[in-house]
């Protein structure tokens, strides 16, 4: 039987725990990556290190709070390492950064233990040991070289023994993994207010932890008449160089020494034997003795904005309610029209109209606000990618400059969640297959380091994300050949495709699975999956490529998934919703002359032969003509234009997208469904999918 881990966390807190932990892990990781990029210049990396340090510090507290000692311990060691890096006495070597990144990954595994409650079996002590070795080596070197001009040269005779109570406290700190430092210092002879300097030093030390004992005591310092040396035992979770740095900042200090203070073990052990029963049984004992040492103050509260964290599910529920409100309002407008038609204009109908338009305004604003609340900067997602690129580049032995642009672009968090995987795919491909090896690049006269550029921008109500590399590009000839080999299309058909169409074949299912295709084309690992996912979001993906210069993948995505502007149409007995973003124009069929070209219906529209796709045939509803005036809805996907022949236009409507039941799979040409004002269900047309499927059918000579 497997062990079950116990944590001090309720099931309903796990979501928040994960959010918090992920946030801090990402902060640590990005700090490390920036540190690596900056080449470890302390001056440049201060800010990243400070952020990473803070994140580690908070994470340690979280881990301790849920009762995960291994996680807390590892985070503690990482925190110390960050501190050493920040203080500059540890150099950020490649090996150290690798190890710290591995430590962050280990923390992820430990994080998951809280969810699964199963021990992962990951080796935490070894990692902690490695980091600690690194730290103590660096500390030895650093202590040996630090600040000789301030070296303590007084005598150490002021040392006095710790009282019982002080020993207990010191021991409690040591057990918690803190260090004890014995500090001697003196003010410069003739300094102005020398005792005030010592008091200042004492206060400065208190910022680092807790002073177990000092001589003279703080209260006595100002009463002294002559300068005396100060002796302090400090308990802190920082290392000697940090303590020294803290003291060096104080003016008029003559010299100081910071030495590790070792508790007299036998004395402490005896005391703890005595102390434990005492602390348990005697309520009169001062709290200080029994309570755990106070945690150092956290700094996470600084710079906090006036924000409230809200559960995503609650936000989704809110959005759904607003969606229903929008539907209700549409229904109300229908009732209003019906009433006016039936009773004509009167006081009541006018009052209803006014009410309806007021209500409409409020609903619109509400919708806008809730929508805004769901918007998050895409940086949330993009921040994960530098690590990905780094790892892929390392494995592939390539040098890559990774450029991120437009990370402030905002979009619906639901969209962000769903495009993660496709982007990982594209970025991985770009480094792994898109970029040539350094040797090849140099031989071609290109910069040795390849560039991968990830950018996001708003364009006409959509968000466009591009993944661009300056690698070898995609050769349409190879793609054609590979597609024919894979049996995707005949040699003739392949020859007819222009370069752009041929390149687009890489998105076809089955294209990707053959390994040799990957080699010759340099592309094609699961790109059909990318297209499917993007399509599911109501978006589209296209590729532009020039041989030898690189490829650009372009993902066009809706800003939000919740609400869609559509045109409702009758198709047989059904109502379909066509997203307005895909529509160029709607025409009444009666105004146009339908011609037959090679047996297919077309109309000549804006100087081109526009193929007509009768939706009723395509969807195989054998109902006979539906209600309305036959019409053509001209839709576009990329450069392709198709006229969808429908039985009637109902009108524009803002719809709330409902998820199809999981029971219903992926339906060609359909992206989802909605509930209309009259309570009926309408399916939403997936324009890119529909055109794709129709073109495929046309190649097989079935439709169009």
């Amino acid at each position, binding site marked *: 039987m497997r062990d079950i881990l116990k944590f001090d966390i309720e099931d309903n807190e796990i979501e928040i725990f994960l959010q918090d932990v992920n946030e801090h892990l990402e902060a640590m990781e990005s700090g490390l990556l920036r540190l690596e990029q900056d080449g470890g210049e302390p001056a440049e990396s201060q800010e990243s290190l400070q952020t990473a340090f803070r994140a580690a510090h908070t994470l340690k507290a979280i881990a301790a709070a849920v009762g995960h000692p291994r996680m807390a311990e590892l985070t503690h060691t990482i925190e110390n390492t960050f501190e050493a890096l920040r203080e500059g006495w540890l150099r950020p070597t490649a090996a150290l950064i690798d190890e710290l990144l591995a430590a962050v990954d280990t923390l992820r595994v430990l994080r998951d233990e809280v969810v699964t409650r199963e021990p992962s079996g990951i080796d935490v002590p070894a990692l902690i040991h490695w980091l600690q070795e690194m730290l103590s080596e660096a500390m030895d070197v650093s202590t040996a070289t630090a600040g000789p001009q301030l070296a303590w040269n007084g005598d150490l005779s002021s040392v006095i023994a710790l009282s019982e109570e002080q020993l207990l406290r010191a021991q409690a700190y040591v057990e918690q993994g803190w260090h004890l430092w014995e500090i001697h210092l003196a003010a410069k002879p003739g300094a102005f207010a020398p005792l005030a300097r010592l008091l200042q030093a004492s206060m400065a030390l208190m910022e680092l932890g807790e002073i177990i004992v000092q001589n003279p005591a703080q209260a006595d310092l100002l009463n002294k008449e002559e300068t005396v040396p100060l002796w302090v035992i400090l308990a802190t979770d920082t290392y000697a160089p940090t303590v020294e740095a803290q003291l060096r900042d104080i003016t008029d200090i003559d010299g100081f020494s910071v030495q590790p203070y070792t508790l007299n073990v036998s004395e402490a052990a005896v005391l703890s034997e005595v102390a434990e029963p005492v602390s348990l049984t005697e309520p009169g004992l001062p709290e200080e003795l029994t309570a755990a040492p106070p945690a150092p103050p956290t700094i996470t509260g600084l710079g906090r904005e006036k924000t409230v964290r809200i559960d995503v599910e609650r936000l989704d529920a809110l959005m759904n309610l607003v969606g229903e409100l929008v539907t209700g309002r549409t229904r109300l407008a229908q009732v209003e029209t019906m009433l006016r038609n039936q009773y004509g204009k009167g006081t009541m109908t006018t009052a209803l109209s006014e009410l309806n338009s007021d209500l409409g305004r409020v609903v619109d604003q509400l919708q806008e606000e809730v929508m805004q609340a769901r918007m998050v900067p895409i940086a949330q997602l993009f921040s994960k990618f530098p690590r990905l690129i780094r790892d892929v580049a390392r494995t592939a032995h390539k040098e890559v400059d990774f450029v991120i642009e437009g990370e402030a672009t905002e979009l619906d968090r639901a969209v962000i969640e769903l495009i993660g995987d496709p982007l990982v795919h594209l970025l991985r491909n770009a480094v792994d297959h898109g970029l040539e090896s350094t040797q090849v690049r140099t031989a071609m006269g290109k910069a040795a380091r390849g560039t991968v550029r990830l950018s996001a921008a708003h364009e006409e109500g959509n968000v466009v994300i591009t993944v661009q590399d300056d690698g070898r590009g995609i050769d349409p000839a190879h793609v054609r050949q590979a597609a024919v080999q894979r049996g995707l299309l005949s040699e003739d058909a392949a020859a007819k495709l222009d370069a752009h169409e041929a390149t687009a074949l890489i998105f076809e299912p089955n294209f990707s699975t053959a390994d040799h295709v990957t080699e010759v084309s340099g592309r094609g690992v699961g790109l059909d999956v990318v297209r499917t996912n993007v399509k599911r979001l109501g978006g589209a993906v296209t590729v532009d490529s020039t041989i030898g210069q690189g490829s650009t993948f372009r993902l066009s995505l809706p800003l939000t998934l919740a609400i869609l502007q559509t045109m409702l149409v009758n198709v047989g007995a059904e109502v379909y919703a066509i997203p307005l973003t895909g529509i160029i124009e709607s025409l009444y069929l009666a105004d146009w002359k339908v011609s037959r070209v090679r047996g297919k219906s077309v109309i000549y529209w804006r100087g081109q032969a526009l193929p007509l796709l009768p939706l009723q045939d395509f969807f195989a509803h054998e109902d006979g003509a539906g209600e309305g005036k036959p019409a053509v809805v001209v839709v576009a996907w990329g450069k392709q234009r198709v006229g969808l022949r429908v039985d009637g236009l109902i009108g524009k409507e803002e719809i709330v997208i*409902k998820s199809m039941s999981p*029971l219903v799979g992926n339906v060609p040409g359909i992206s989802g469904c909605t509930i209309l004002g009259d309570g009926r269900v309408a399916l939403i047309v997936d324009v890119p999918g529909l055109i794709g499927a129709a073109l495929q059918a046309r190649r097989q000579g079935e439709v169009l």
Partner: protein
Amino acid sequence: MDRQFVIFTLADESFGVAIALVERIIELRSVARVPFAPDFFHGVVNLDDRVLPVLDLRKRFGFPAQPPTRETRLLVVAVAGVRVGMRVDRVTQVLTVSDADIEPLPPIVATVHSHFITGIAKVARTAPESEGMAQAEERRLIILLNLRKVLSTDEKAALQGWDYTLADVPEWAEDAAPEMLTDLKV
């Protein structure tokens, strides 16, 4: 042990599903057909502003199609989190059946493929539901359905090339926590 079943008919045959799996029974309403779906997939309907997929059980079991009548009902069932409506000819009653009256699998069941069936209940005829039926036999047979199988699609042949996926429904659970059936309208 006694178990409760919701009994419905399809082409004059009686079927039962465990009451714990039945959420509601509603009248047939406007259905949006889903293109490329298998023919037993009736379409989707609006149930409390949510989209509910509906299976036509007549077609699922290979009975001849029949236009809806006044008595046509949708049985809304939930199996392992998958909510689905099942179109049936008529819902007749809620019946308590003792385990002793349930037989595993009969040697011959002509009408319904045997893997849809968990057992056959033999119950005594009672007056209320005998209307329109011959009183000749003393006992009648009720086919108890394995909803998991009914909701799953092992038979790829029926799927007409559509990537028709179903959530993985665990083995039909006799021990599923019985939920109170609050709005059963028979």
